[in-house]
Protein backbone atom coordinates (compact mmCIF):
# COMPACT_ATOMS: atom_id res chain seq x y z
CA UNK A 1 0.00 0.00 0.00
CA UNK A 2 1.38 3.41 -0.92
CA UNK A 3 0.66 6.42 1.25
CA UNK A 4 2.45 9.08 -0.75
CA UNK A 5 0.82 12.38 -1.58
CA UNK A 6 0.29 13.40 -5.18
CA UNK A 7 1.30 16.44 -7.19
CA UNK A 8 -2.09 18.21 -6.92
CA UNK A 9 -1.89 18.31 -3.12
CA UNK A 10 1.45 20.10 -3.32
CA UNK A 11 0.18 22.34 -6.14
CA UNK A 12 -2.82 23.42 -4.05
CA UNK A 13 -0.52 24.35 -1.17
CA UNK A 14 2.19 26.03 -3.21
CA UNK A 15 1.48 29.60 -2.18
CA UNK A 16 2.07 28.83 1.45
CA UNK A 17 4.64 26.07 1.03
CA UNK A 18 6.83 28.11 -1.38
CA UNK A 19 6.15 31.71 -0.36
CA UNK A 20 4.48 31.65 3.10
CA UNK A 21 1.47 33.37 1.54
CA UNK A 22 -1.93 32.80 3.09
CA UNK A 23 -5.26 34.46 3.60
CA UNK A 24 -5.82 37.02 6.36
CA UNK A 25 -9.30 37.95 7.54
CA UNK A 26 -9.68 41.72 7.22
CA UNK A 27 -12.29 41.77 9.98
CA UNK A 28 -10.80 39.69 12.83
CA UNK A 29 -7.20 39.15 11.68
CA UNK A 30 -7.23 35.32 11.64
CA UNK A 31 -4.61 33.91 9.26
CA UNK A 32 -5.30 30.83 7.09
CA UNK A 33 -2.65 28.81 5.29
CA UNK A 34 -5.09 27.66 2.59
CA UNK A 35 -7.37 29.72 0.38
CA UNK A 36 -10.80 30.04 1.98
CA UNK A 37 -14.06 31.78 1.16
CA UNK A 38 -15.08 32.24 4.80
CA UNK A 39 -12.96 33.06 7.87
CA UNK A 40 -12.84 30.05 10.18
CA UNK A 41 -13.01 32.25 13.27
CA UNK A 42 -15.53 35.06 12.54
CA UNK A 43 -17.23 33.82 9.32
CA UNK A 44 -16.34 37.03 7.48
CA UNK A 45 -15.95 36.74 3.70
CA UNK A 46 -13.30 39.45 3.48
CA UNK A 47 -10.03 37.57 3.12
CA UNK A 48 -6.94 39.03 1.53
CA UNK A 49 -3.72 37.43 0.33
CA UNK A 50 -0.80 38.22 2.61
CA UNK A 51 2.81 37.09 2.94
CA UNK A 52 4.00 36.25 6.46
CA UNK A 53 7.09 38.04 7.80
CA UNK A 54 10.34 36.13 7.19
CA UNK A 55 11.52 36.56 10.77
CA UNK A 56 9.79 34.45 13.40
CA UNK A 57 10.25 33.47 17.06
CA UNK A 58 10.81 29.86 18.15
CA UNK A 59 8.09 28.71 20.57
CA UNK A 60 8.78 25.01 20.98
CA UNK A 61 10.61 22.21 19.16
CA UNK A 62 11.37 18.50 19.11
CA UNK A 63 14.11 16.37 17.55
CA UNK A 64 12.72 13.44 15.59
CA UNK A 65 14.96 10.36 15.81
CA UNK A 66 12.61 7.75 14.35
CA UNK A 67 10.75 8.62 11.16
CA UNK A 68 9.03 6.97 8.26
CA UNK A 69 10.27 6.32 4.75
CA UNK A 70 10.07 9.78 3.24
CA UNK A 71 12.13 11.34 6.00
CA UNK A 72 14.55 8.56 6.89
CA UNK A 73 17.46 10.13 5.01
CA UNK A 74 17.41 13.25 7.16
CA UNK A 75 17.44 11.72 10.65
CA UNK A 76 17.63 13.13 13.20
CA UNK A 77 15.81 16.34 12.23
CA UNK A 78 14.31 19.23 14.16
CA UNK A 79 10.66 20.30 13.87
CA UNK A 80 9.66 23.58 15.47
CA UNK A 81 6.55 25.54 16.27
CA UNK A 82 7.23 29.20 15.51
CA UNK A 83 5.29 32.42 15.94
CA UNK A 84 5.27 35.54 13.77
CA UNK A 85 5.41 38.99 15.45
CA UNK A 86 1.61 39.28 15.15
CA UNK A 87 0.97 35.87 16.70
CA UNK A 88 0.47 33.48 13.76
CA UNK A 89 1.78 30.05 14.77
CA UNK A 90 3.10 27.62 12.16
CA UNK A 91 5.08 24.40 12.12
CA UNK A 92 8.19 23.70 10.09
CA UNK A 93 11.53 21.94 10.05
CA UNK A 94 14.53 23.82 11.42
CA UNK A 95 17.80 23.46 9.54
CA UNK A 96 21.44 24.68 9.42
CA UNK A 97 21.92 24.16 13.16
CA UNK A 98 22.18 21.59 15.93
CA UNK A 99 19.45 21.13 18.57
CA UNK A 100 21.85 22.56 21.20
CA UNK A 101 21.93 25.87 19.29
CA UNK A 102 18.21 26.40 19.88
CA UNK A 103 16.27 27.89 22.77
CA UNK A 104 12.62 28.92 23.01
CA UNK A 105 12.20 32.61 22.23
CA UNK A 106 15.11 32.91 19.80
CA UNK A 107 14.67 34.50 16.39
CA UNK A 108 14.68 32.39 13.23
CA UNK A 109 14.54 33.31 9.57
CA UNK A 110 12.80 31.47 6.75
CA UNK A 111 14.68 29.72 3.99
CA UNK A 112 13.59 27.83 0.86
CA UNK A 113 14.67 24.19 0.82
CA UNK A 114 14.16 20.74 -0.60
CA UNK A 115 11.77 19.01 1.82
CA UNK A 116 11.91 15.48 0.41
CA UNK A 117 10.89 13.26 -2.44
CA UNK A 118 7.42 11.96 -3.08
CA UNK A 119 5.99 8.84 -4.66
CA UNK A 120 7.53 6.15 -6.83
CA UNK A 121 8.79 8.73 -9.32
CA UNK A 122 10.72 10.54 -6.57
CA UNK A 123 9.23 13.94 -7.35
CA UNK A 124 11.15 16.56 -5.39
CA UNK A 125 9.04 18.55 -2.94
CA UNK A 126 10.27 22.05 -2.04
CA UNK A 127 9.09 24.33 0.69
CA UNK A 128 10.05 26.59 3.57
CA UNK A 129 12.21 25.71 6.56
CA UNK A 130 13.51 27.87 9.40
CA UNK A 131 17.09 28.50 10.51
CA UNK A 132 18.89 30.62 13.08
CA UNK A 133 19.88 34.02 11.72
CA UNK A 134 23.33 34.08 10.19
CA UNK A 135 25.36 37.00 11.51
Amino acid at each position, binding site marked *: *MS*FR*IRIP*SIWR*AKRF*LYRLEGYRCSRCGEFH*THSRYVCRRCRSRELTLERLPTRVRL*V*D*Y*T*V*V*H*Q*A*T*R*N*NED*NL*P*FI*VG*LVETPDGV*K*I*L*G*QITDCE*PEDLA*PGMELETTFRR*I*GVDGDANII*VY*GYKFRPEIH
Partner: protein
Amino acid sequence: MGTAAVVGVGHTQFGQRSDMTLAELAWHAIKEALQDAGITQRDVDYVVTSNVGGWSSEPLPAILVNEYSGLGDVGVMRVEAACASGSAAIRAAYNAVASREAEIALAVGVEKMTESPTLQAVELLGRAGNFFWEFEQFGLTFPAYYALYATAYINQYGAKEEDLAAVAVKNHFYGSLNSLAHFQKKISIEDVMSSRYIAWPLKLYDCSPITDGAAAVVIASEDMARKLTDTPVWIRGIGVASDTSNLSRRQNFLGLASTVKAADEAYRKAGIDKTEAVRRLDLAEVHDCFTIAEILAYEDLGFVGRGEGYALAREGETYKGGLIPVNLDGGLKAKGHPIGATGVSMAVEAVKQLRQQNAKARQADIKNGYALTHNVGGTGHYAYVTIYSLNRPTQS
Protein backbone atom coordinates in the same frame (compact mmCIF):
# COMPACT_ATOMS: atom_id res chain seq x y z
CA MET B 1 -32.80 9.48 29.28
CA GLY B 2 -32.90 6.36 31.40
CA THR B 3 -30.02 4.96 33.39
CA ALA B 4 -27.63 2.25 32.25
CA ALA B 5 -25.05 0.04 33.89
CA VAL B 6 -22.19 -2.22 32.94
CA VAL B 7 -23.17 -5.80 33.79
CA GLY B 8 -20.44 -7.80 32.08
CA VAL B 9 -16.80 -7.33 31.07
CA GLY B 10 -14.28 -9.32 29.05
CA HIS B 11 -10.61 -8.76 28.19
CA THR B 12 -8.08 -10.77 26.20
CA GLN B 13 -4.38 -11.11 26.78
CA PHE B 14 -2.73 -8.00 25.28
CA GLY B 15 0.50 -8.41 23.30
CA GLN B 16 1.58 -9.68 19.91
CA ARG B 17 -1.36 -11.92 19.04
CA SER B 18 -0.28 -13.55 15.80
CA ASP B 19 -2.14 -16.67 17.02
CA MET B 20 -5.59 -15.25 16.20
CA THR B 21 -7.55 -13.34 13.58
CA LEU B 22 -9.20 -10.02 14.44
CA ALA B 23 -12.62 -11.69 14.75
CA GLU B 24 -11.32 -14.51 16.96
CA LEU B 25 -9.61 -12.02 19.24
CA ALA B 26 -12.82 -9.98 19.55
CA TRP B 27 -14.85 -13.13 20.25
CA HIS B 28 -12.64 -14.11 23.18
CA ALA B 29 -13.43 -10.78 24.86
CA ILE B 30 -17.12 -10.94 23.91
CA LYS B 31 -17.51 -14.51 25.22
CA GLU B 32 -16.03 -13.56 28.57
CA ALA B 33 -18.26 -10.46 28.81
CA LEU B 34 -21.43 -12.42 27.98
CA GLN B 35 -20.54 -15.11 30.54
CA ASP B 36 -19.77 -12.45 33.13
CA ALA B 37 -23.22 -10.92 32.51
CA GLY B 38 -24.90 -14.34 32.52
CA ILE B 39 -26.45 -13.85 29.07
CA THR B 40 -26.04 -15.27 25.57
CA GLN B 41 -25.67 -13.69 22.14
CA ARG B 42 -29.47 -13.81 21.68
CA ASP B 43 -29.97 -11.31 24.52
CA VAL B 44 -27.92 -8.58 22.83
CA ASP B 45 -29.99 -5.94 20.98
CA TYR B 46 -27.26 -3.75 19.54
CA VAL B 47 -23.49 -3.90 19.00
CA VAL B 48 -20.90 -1.15 18.57
CA THR B 49 -17.42 -2.16 17.46
CA SER B 50 -14.40 0.07 17.92
CA ASN B 51 -11.59 -0.57 15.46
CA VAL B 52 -9.27 1.94 13.82
CA GLY B 53 -7.71 -0.50 11.35
CA GLY B 54 -5.34 0.36 8.55
CA TRP B 55 -2.68 -1.96 9.95
CA SER B 56 -5.10 -4.89 9.69
CA SER B 57 -6.85 -5.58 6.43
CA GLU B 58 -10.54 -5.79 7.38
CA PRO B 59 -12.56 -2.81 6.12
CA LEU B 60 -15.81 -4.01 7.75
CA PRO B 61 -14.64 -5.28 11.14
CA ALA B 62 -18.01 -4.80 12.85
CA ILE B 63 -19.79 -7.20 10.48
CA LEU B 64 -16.96 -9.70 10.65
CA VAL B 65 -16.98 -9.68 14.46
CA ASN B 66 -20.78 -9.97 14.64
CA GLU B 67 -20.91 -12.94 12.30
CA TYR B 68 -17.98 -14.76 13.90
CA SER B 69 -19.42 -14.20 17.36
CA GLY B 70 -22.90 -15.43 16.45
CA LEU B 71 -24.53 -12.13 17.32
CA GLY B 72 -27.07 -12.61 14.54
CA ASP B 73 -28.71 -9.86 12.54
CA VAL B 74 -28.92 -7.15 15.18
CA GLY B 75 -27.95 -3.55 14.42
CA VAL B 76 -24.23 -2.90 14.45
CA MET B 77 -21.77 -0.18 13.54
CA ARG B 78 -18.06 0.47 13.69
CA VAL B 79 -16.88 3.71 15.33
CA GLU B 80 -13.63 5.63 14.99
CA ALA B 81 -12.26 8.34 17.26
CA ALA B 82 -8.56 7.46 16.90
CA CYS B 83 -7.16 6.17 20.20
CA ALA B 84 -10.44 7.15 21.93
CA SER B 85 -12.53 4.88 19.68
CA GLY B 86 -13.18 2.44 22.53
CA SER B 87 -14.79 5.14 24.65
CA ALA B 88 -16.77 6.33 21.63
CA ALA B 89 -18.13 2.78 21.29
CA ILE B 90 -19.12 2.75 24.96
CA ARG B 91 -20.85 6.11 24.60
CA ALA B 92 -22.81 4.90 21.55
CA ALA B 93 -23.80 1.66 23.33
CA TYR B 94 -24.71 3.61 26.48
CA ASN B 95 -26.86 6.04 24.47
CA ALA B 96 -28.69 3.14 22.80
CA VAL B 97 -29.63 1.75 26.21
CA ALA B 98 -30.25 5.04 28.03
CA SER B 99 -32.54 6.20 25.20
CA ARG B 100 -34.41 2.87 25.53
CA GLU B 101 -33.67 1.86 21.93
CA ALA B 102 -31.97 -1.25 23.35
CA GLU B 103 -32.28 -3.25 26.57
CA ILE B 104 -28.79 -4.70 26.26
CA ALA B 105 -25.99 -3.30 24.10
CA LEU B 106 -22.48 -4.59 23.61
CA ALA B 107 -19.40 -2.40 23.10
CA VAL B 108 -16.40 -4.22 21.64
CA GLY B 109 -12.92 -2.83 21.05
CA VAL B 110 -10.45 -4.79 18.96
CA GLU B 111 -7.19 -3.98 17.22
CA LYS B 112 -4.53 -6.04 15.46
CA MET B 113 -1.67 -3.61 14.98
CA THR B 114 1.11 -6.14 14.47
CA GLU B 115 -0.44 -7.29 11.17
CA SER B 116 1.72 -4.53 9.63
CA PRO B 117 5.47 -3.92 10.02
CA THR B 118 6.34 -1.52 12.85
CA LEU B 119 7.38 1.36 10.59
CA GLN B 120 4.10 1.19 8.68
CA ALA B 121 2.18 1.27 11.97
CA VAL B 122 4.30 4.26 13.04
CA GLU B 123 3.47 5.96 9.74
CA LEU B 124 -0.25 5.34 10.14
CA LEU B 125 -0.14 6.75 13.68
CA GLY B 126 1.78 9.80 12.41
CA ARG B 127 -0.97 10.46 9.88
CA ALA B 128 -3.45 10.77 12.76
CA GLY B 129 -3.35 14.54 12.94
CA ASN B 130 -3.24 17.00 10.08
CA PHE B 131 -1.64 14.69 7.52
CA PHE B 132 -0.50 17.18 4.93
CA TRP B 133 0.66 20.02 7.16
CA GLU B 134 2.29 18.01 9.92
CA PHE B 135 3.21 14.50 8.89
CA GLU B 136 3.98 14.76 5.18
CA GLN B 137 5.71 18.13 4.99
CA PHE B 138 7.47 18.30 8.32
CA GLY B 139 7.94 14.66 9.28
CA LEU B 140 6.21 14.94 12.63
CA THR B 141 5.46 11.48 14.01
CA PHE B 142 2.93 10.67 16.72
CA PRO B 143 5.62 10.72 19.46
CA ALA B 144 6.80 14.06 18.03
CA TYR B 145 3.35 15.64 18.52
CA TYR B 146 3.50 14.79 22.22
CA ALA B 147 7.19 15.76 22.35
CA LEU B 148 6.12 19.32 21.53
CA TYR B 149 3.88 19.21 24.61
CA ALA B 150 6.69 17.71 26.69
CA THR B 151 9.23 20.40 25.79
CA ALA B 152 6.70 23.17 26.37
CA TYR B 153 5.80 21.67 29.77
CA ILE B 154 9.44 21.19 30.80
CA ASN B 155 10.35 24.73 29.76
CA GLN B 156 7.39 26.27 31.55
CA TYR B 157 7.49 24.42 34.87
CA GLY B 158 11.05 23.08 35.19
CA ALA B 159 10.05 19.40 35.15
CA LYS B 160 12.85 16.95 34.41
CA GLU B 161 13.00 14.01 32.01
CA GLU B 162 13.32 11.85 35.15
CA ASP B 163 9.84 13.01 36.23
CA LEU B 164 8.40 11.69 32.97
CA ALA B 165 10.36 8.48 33.53
CA ALA B 166 8.68 8.05 36.93
CA VAL B 167 5.35 7.57 35.13
CA ALA B 168 6.80 4.74 33.02
CA VAL B 169 8.34 3.10 36.09
CA LYS B 170 5.00 3.19 37.96
CA ASN B 171 3.00 1.83 35.05
CA HIS B 172 5.50 -0.97 34.41
CA PHE B 173 5.34 -1.83 38.11
CA TYR B 174 1.58 -2.34 37.86
CA GLY B 175 1.99 -4.06 34.47
CA SER B 176 4.18 -6.61 36.26
CA LEU B 177 1.17 -7.44 38.47
CA ASN B 178 -1.31 -7.73 35.58
CA SER B 179 -1.26 -11.10 33.82
CA LEU B 180 -3.12 -9.61 30.81
CA ALA B 181 -0.51 -6.85 30.23
CA HIS B 182 1.74 -6.76 27.16
CA PHE B 183 4.81 -5.98 29.30
CA GLN B 184 5.05 -7.64 32.72
CA LYS B 185 8.54 -6.52 33.66
CA LYS B 186 9.46 -3.84 36.16
CA ILE B 187 11.82 -1.13 34.92
CA SER B 188 13.95 1.51 36.66
CA ILE B 189 14.42 5.24 36.09
CA GLU B 190 17.86 4.36 34.69
CA ASP B 191 16.31 1.97 32.15
CA VAL B 192 14.09 4.79 30.90
CA MET B 193 16.83 7.41 30.90
CA SER B 194 19.25 5.19 28.97
CA SER B 195 16.73 4.20 26.29
CA ARG B 196 17.17 5.84 22.88
CA TYR B 197 15.40 9.03 21.85
CA ILE B 198 12.36 8.64 19.60
CA ALA B 199 11.37 12.32 19.54
CA TRP B 200 13.37 14.37 22.04
CA PRO B 201 12.69 14.58 24.98
CA LEU B 202 10.63 11.39 24.66
CA LYS B 203 12.59 8.14 24.71
CA LEU B 204 11.60 4.60 23.79
CA TYR B 205 10.44 3.88 27.37
CA ASP B 206 8.29 7.04 27.41
CA CYS B 207 6.17 5.53 24.62
CA SER B 208 3.33 3.01 24.71
CA PRO B 209 3.84 -0.05 22.50
CA ILE B 210 2.18 -1.36 19.33
CA THR B 211 -0.15 -4.04 20.66
CA ASP B 212 -2.91 -6.46 19.67
CA GLY B 213 -5.89 -7.07 21.92
CA ALA B 214 -9.62 -6.90 22.50
CA ALA B 215 -12.02 -5.95 25.28
CA ALA B 216 -15.81 -5.95 25.61
CA VAL B 217 -18.48 -4.60 27.96
CA VAL B 218 -22.17 -5.41 28.23
CA ILE B 219 -24.37 -2.40 29.03
CA ALA B 220 -27.92 -2.94 30.28
CA SER B 221 -30.95 -0.86 31.20
CA GLU B 222 -31.73 -0.44 34.90
CA ASP B 223 -34.49 -3.10 34.94
CA MET B 224 -32.34 -5.59 33.07
CA ALA B 225 -29.26 -4.80 35.17
CA ARG B 226 -31.23 -5.50 38.38
CA LYS B 227 -32.26 -8.90 36.99
CA LEU B 228 -28.74 -9.85 35.91
CA THR B 229 -26.54 -8.78 38.81
CA ASP B 230 -26.46 -7.43 42.34
CA THR B 231 -23.39 -5.30 41.55
CA PRO B 232 -24.23 -3.21 38.49
CA VAL B 233 -21.62 -0.56 37.74
CA TRP B 234 -23.54 2.54 36.71
CA ILE B 235 -22.35 4.85 33.97
CA ARG B 236 -22.77 8.13 35.79
CA GLY B 237 -21.47 10.61 33.26
CA ILE B 238 -19.73 10.72 29.90
CA GLY B 239 -18.06 13.90 28.69
CA VAL B 240 -16.86 14.28 25.12
CA ALA B 241 -14.96 17.04 23.32
CA SER B 242 -12.61 17.68 20.40
CA ASP B 243 -9.88 20.07 19.29
CA THR B 244 -8.19 21.42 16.12
CA SER B 245 -6.59 19.01 13.66
CA ASN B 246 -3.51 21.18 13.26
CA LEU B 247 -1.45 21.55 16.45
CA SER B 248 -0.29 25.03 15.45
CA ARG B 249 -3.82 26.26 16.16
CA ARG B 250 -3.80 25.08 19.80
CA GLN B 251 -3.98 27.77 22.49
CA ASN B 252 -0.99 26.34 24.35
CA PHE B 253 0.96 23.13 24.78
CA LEU B 254 0.62 22.79 28.56
CA GLY B 255 -2.55 20.72 28.60
CA LEU B 256 -5.28 19.29 26.40
CA ALA B 257 -8.26 21.65 26.17
CA SER B 258 -10.47 18.78 24.97
CA THR B 259 -9.75 16.79 28.14
CA VAL B 260 -10.66 19.77 30.33
CA LYS B 261 -13.98 20.23 28.51
CA ALA B 262 -14.82 16.51 28.55
CA ALA B 263 -13.91 16.23 32.25
CA ASP B 264 -16.06 19.24 33.19
CA GLU B 265 -19.03 17.64 31.44
CA ALA B 266 -18.49 14.21 33.01
CA TYR B 267 -18.05 15.63 36.53
CA ARG B 268 -21.17 17.79 36.14
CA LYS B 269 -23.28 14.82 35.00
CA ALA B 270 -21.95 12.65 37.83
CA GLY B 271 -22.53 15.40 40.40
CA ILE B 272 -18.86 15.66 41.34
CA ASP B 273 -17.26 19.01 42.11
CA LYS B 274 -14.03 19.08 40.05
CA THR B 275 -12.05 20.53 42.95
CA GLU B 276 -13.20 17.58 45.09
CA ALA B 277 -12.66 14.94 42.38
CA VAL B 278 -9.44 13.62 43.83
CA ARG B 279 -11.24 12.81 47.10
CA ARG B 280 -14.37 11.36 45.46
CA LEU B 281 -12.63 9.03 43.00
CA ASP B 282 -11.15 5.76 44.27
CA LEU B 283 -8.99 5.41 41.16
CA ALA B 284 -8.46 6.72 37.65
CA GLU B 285 -7.52 5.16 34.35
CA VAL B 286 -5.80 7.88 32.30
CA HIS B 287 -4.51 7.98 28.75
CA ASP B 288 -0.73 7.50 29.05
CA CYS B 289 0.13 6.92 25.37
CA PHE B 290 3.29 8.83 26.34
CA THR B 291 4.51 9.59 29.84
CA ILE B 292 3.92 13.33 29.39
CA ALA B 293 0.28 12.59 28.53
CA GLU B 294 -0.32 11.09 31.99
CA ILE B 295 1.17 14.17 33.67
CA LEU B 296 -0.97 16.52 31.57
CA ALA B 297 -4.00 14.36 32.49
CA TYR B 298 -3.39 14.85 36.25
CA GLU B 299 -3.79 18.59 35.68
CA ASP B 300 -6.50 18.56 32.98
CA LEU B 301 -8.68 16.27 35.13
CA GLY B 302 -8.24 18.56 38.12
CA PHE B 303 -6.32 16.17 40.40
CA VAL B 304 -3.76 18.96 40.97
CA GLY B 305 -3.24 22.54 39.80
CA ARG B 306 -1.35 23.69 36.71
CA GLY B 307 2.36 22.88 36.86
CA GLU B 308 1.94 20.46 39.76
CA GLY B 309 1.42 17.23 37.83
CA TYR B 310 5.07 16.27 37.53
CA ALA B 311 5.54 16.50 41.30
CA LEU B 312 2.71 13.98 41.71
CA ALA B 313 4.67 11.57 39.49
CA ARG B 314 7.99 12.35 41.15
CA GLU B 315 6.63 11.79 44.66
CA GLY B 316 4.79 8.58 43.78
CA GLU B 317 1.39 10.03 44.69
CA THR B 318 -0.37 8.07 41.94
CA TYR B 319 0.61 4.67 43.29
CA LYS B 320 -1.92 2.73 45.35
CA GLY B 321 -2.11 4.45 48.73
CA GLY B 322 -1.17 7.85 47.28
CA LEU B 323 -3.34 10.89 46.57
CA ILE B 324 -5.12 8.98 43.79
CA PRO B 325 -4.13 5.63 42.27
CA VAL B 326 -3.71 5.90 38.49
CA ASN B 327 -3.42 3.09 35.94
CA LEU B 328 -3.24 0.16 38.34
CA ASP B 329 -3.46 -2.15 35.30
CA GLY B 330 -0.17 -0.85 33.86
CA GLY B 331 -1.79 1.78 31.65
CA LEU B 332 -1.23 2.05 27.93
CA LYS B 333 2.49 2.10 28.68
CA ALA B 334 2.81 -1.45 30.05
CA LYS B 335 -0.58 -3.08 29.49
CA GLY B 336 -0.33 -2.04 25.84
CA HIS B 337 -2.28 0.23 23.51
CA PRO B 338 -4.27 -1.69 20.87
CA ILE B 339 -5.81 1.56 19.61
CA GLY B 340 -9.48 0.57 19.20
CA ALA B 341 -9.48 -1.70 22.27
CA THR B 342 -7.92 0.77 24.72
CA GLY B 343 -11.03 2.71 25.78
CA VAL B 344 -13.01 -0.49 26.34
CA SER B 345 -10.07 -1.99 28.25
CA MET B 346 -10.12 1.06 30.55
CA ALA B 347 -13.82 0.44 31.22
CA VAL B 348 -13.16 -3.23 32.01
CA GLU B 349 -10.46 -2.21 34.48
CA ALA B 350 -12.67 0.44 36.12
CA VAL B 351 -15.48 -2.11 36.58
CA LYS B 352 -13.17 -4.82 37.96
CA GLN B 353 -11.62 -2.33 40.36
CA LEU B 354 -15.03 -1.19 41.63
CA ARG B 355 -16.10 -4.84 42.05
CA GLN B 356 -12.75 -5.50 43.80
CA GLN B 357 -11.89 -8.39 41.51
CA ASN B 358 -8.19 -7.68 41.04
CA ALA B 359 -5.14 -9.24 42.68
CA LYS B 360 -4.64 -7.53 46.04
CA ALA B 361 -1.33 -5.88 45.11
CA ARG B 362 -3.01 -3.81 42.41
CA GLN B 363 -6.53 -3.53 43.84
CA ALA B 364 -7.45 0.03 44.86
CA ASP B 365 -9.23 0.62 48.15
CA ILE B 366 -12.87 1.19 47.19
CA LYS B 367 -14.27 3.73 49.65
CA ASN B 368 -16.63 5.97 47.67
CA GLY B 369 -17.33 3.63 44.77
CA TYR B 370 -16.28 5.98 41.96
CA ALA B 371 -13.79 5.42 39.12
CA LEU B 372 -12.85 7.64 36.18
CA THR B 373 -11.60 6.71 32.72
CA HIS B 374 -9.87 9.25 30.49
CA ASN B 375 -9.35 8.32 26.86
CA VAL B 376 -7.72 10.64 24.31
CA GLY B 377 -7.71 10.27 20.53
CA GLY B 378 -4.74 11.63 18.63
CA THR B 379 -3.04 14.52 20.44
CA GLY B 380 -6.16 15.74 22.21
CA HIS B 381 -8.08 15.68 18.93
CA TYR B 382 -10.78 13.63 20.64
CA ALA B 383 -11.33 13.32 24.39
CA TYR B 384 -13.72 11.14 26.38
CA VAL B 385 -14.04 11.16 30.17
CA THR B 386 -16.37 8.59 31.74
CA ILE B 387 -17.33 8.17 35.37
CA TYR B 388 -18.40 4.76 36.66
CA SER B 389 -19.95 4.16 40.05
CA LEU B 390 -21.38 1.50 42.33
CA ASN B 391 -23.94 4.12 43.34
CA ARG B 392 -27.05 4.40 41.23
CA PRO B 393 -27.71 7.89 39.84
CA THR B 394 -30.42 9.80 41.68
CA GLN B 395 -33.54 10.46 39.63
CA SER B 396 -33.47 13.72 37.73
